[in-house]
């Protein structure tokens, strides 16, 4: 067979012509603008209801479901990290202190006669296992700038704010003149620290702010345990002394009581000191010259107002960018997973379709 004949016959065999009636019917359908064909003309097919299972098996369904699962998983991890970070350190321990610190502003020996107050656990308050309560020694430093013509007034307001939060001024030093300065050592009840800092921050331009906390619970528990033991020993010695009749025995017991007292005194002092350090936060406020004048505060067009507005705008912008980055951190991986799922589903669908050829 010649190549030309082969090709000619191959072409003829593979180009069957349609039945004239069918061709005419199709032409009429095309001329009519391709209306939907009558249901009777269509090959009867099993009715395909849009069931969830069928949709999920489609490429779009698989992609959507996969991306939703991926996005949820990523978001759960991010939220978990955020919650974990929010509950460690910082103010989470403050609620644990509020329930008992108000009753013991100054730890005297007579206060120690009763047993320690054991506050109820607070959510996130974190009473450590095995510890009776937590003691956090808190401190804060705040640097405020105040205009020279308002300096004394701001200094006075520092004292008023301290007093309004049931705190006291341990030490203060204010010097006016060409370069006024102020330095305050305050003691604020630990449960009022944050509100006090907020109020103090509003007195001037905040140039620096920090607050720290140190957990001294173990030290406190150790000291109080030793104190309890010493007290128990003292009570026992006193009972024995009351029933002693022998002079030698009486003297021995008195000597032991003396030694016990020498042991008790410093322990009481340590507990008192720890309580004071943890019941009250040490706040250091430094006043410097600078910032907007008080008279400008009421004027929204003042430099301070514009500066605050700019700060707020910048803060909002940074916050928005941070949110956007977090959203992208979820959307991009979810999108990649969805794309992979869509491509896989499409490939599977194609191969399933073509399987009939093999």
């Amino acid at each position: 067979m010649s190549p030309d004949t082969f090709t000619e016959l191959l072409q003829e065999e593979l180009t069957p012509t349609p039945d004239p009636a069918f061709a005419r019917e199709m032409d009429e359908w095309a001329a009519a603008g391709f209306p939907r064909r009558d249901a009777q003309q269509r090959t009867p097919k099993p009715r395909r209801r849009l069931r969830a299972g069928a949709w999920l098996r489609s490429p779009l369904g698989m992609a959507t479901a996969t991306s939703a699962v991926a996005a949820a998983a990523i978001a759960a991890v991010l939220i978990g990290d955020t919650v974990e970070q929010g509950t460690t350190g910082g103010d989470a321990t403050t609620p644990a202190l509020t329930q008992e610190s108000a009753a013991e502003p100054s730890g005297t020996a007579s206060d120690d006669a009763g047993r320690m107050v054991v506050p109820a656990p607070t959510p996130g308050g974190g009473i450590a296992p095995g510890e009776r309560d937590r003691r956090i020694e808190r401190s804060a430093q705040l640097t405020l700038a105040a205009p020279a013509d308002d300096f004394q007034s701001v200094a006075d307001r520092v004292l008023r704010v301290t007093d309004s939060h049931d705190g006291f001024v341990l030490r203060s030093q204010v010097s006016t003149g060409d370069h006024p300065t102020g330095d305050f050592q305050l003691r604020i009840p630990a449960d009022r620290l944050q509100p006090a800092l907020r109020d103090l921050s509003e007195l001037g331009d905040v140039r620096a702010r920090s607050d720290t906390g140190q957990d001294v619970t173990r030290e406190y528990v150790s000291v109080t345990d030793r104190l309890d033991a010493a007290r128990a020993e003292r009570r026992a010695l006193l009972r024995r002394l009351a029933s002693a009749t022998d002079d030698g025995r009486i003297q021995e017991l008195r000597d032991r009581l003396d030694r016990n007292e020498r042991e008790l005194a410093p322990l009481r002092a340590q507990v008192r000191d720890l309580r004071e350090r943890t019941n009250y936060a040490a706040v250091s406020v430094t006043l410097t010259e600078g910032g907007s004048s008080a008279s400008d505060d009421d004027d929204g067009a003042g430099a301070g107002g514009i500066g605050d507005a700019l700060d707020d705008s910048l803060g909002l912008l940074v916050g928005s960018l941070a949110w956007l980055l977090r959203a992208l951190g979820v959307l991009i991986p979810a999108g990649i997973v969805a794309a992979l799922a869509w491509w896989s589903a499409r490939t599977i669908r194609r191969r399933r379709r073509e399987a009939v050829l093999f």
Partner: protein
Amino acid sequence: MSEAALLTETPVTSVSGETFEDLYRRAFPRVYAYVASLLRDTSAAEEVTAQAFERAYRKRRTFKPGLGSADAWLFGIARNAALDELRRLKRRASLEAEPEDAAAVTADEHAERALTRETVRAALATLEPHERDLVALKYSGGLSNAEIARVIGASESNAGTRLHRIVEKLRKACDVA
């Protein structure tokens, strides 16, 4: 007007710079020939051909010129419809279901040519379905290797190589000089 613009701006139909009706009239005989060659059943071929054009008409706005020619797009839809039909029927084409051929052997045809035609038919019958699919796309559909590659989801070189092997197989079976 660009293909994409025609596609989106002409209210009724528009595919690849021509109306859908133009595409239909140009491609209908080839689409039917391809489907019939693959299914080897006249009534099924007619139904699938109609389905293919209906689907293509409904999806005409999904055609993206940058992804290939209108013919490749149309034959892709037709191929899917034909494969769905094959799966539905769950049967392979048999020699007994050969479609009627207007160019069938007539009594007046030279005997040698008749014998030659039978040889070619027998050779075609030995093809596997996936081989027949490629040959039909080429000879029935009149598609280029690039268009065939687009339809079957392979590279152009892969499609060309496979097609060449199939044709060589046929030529050998037909003892082509």
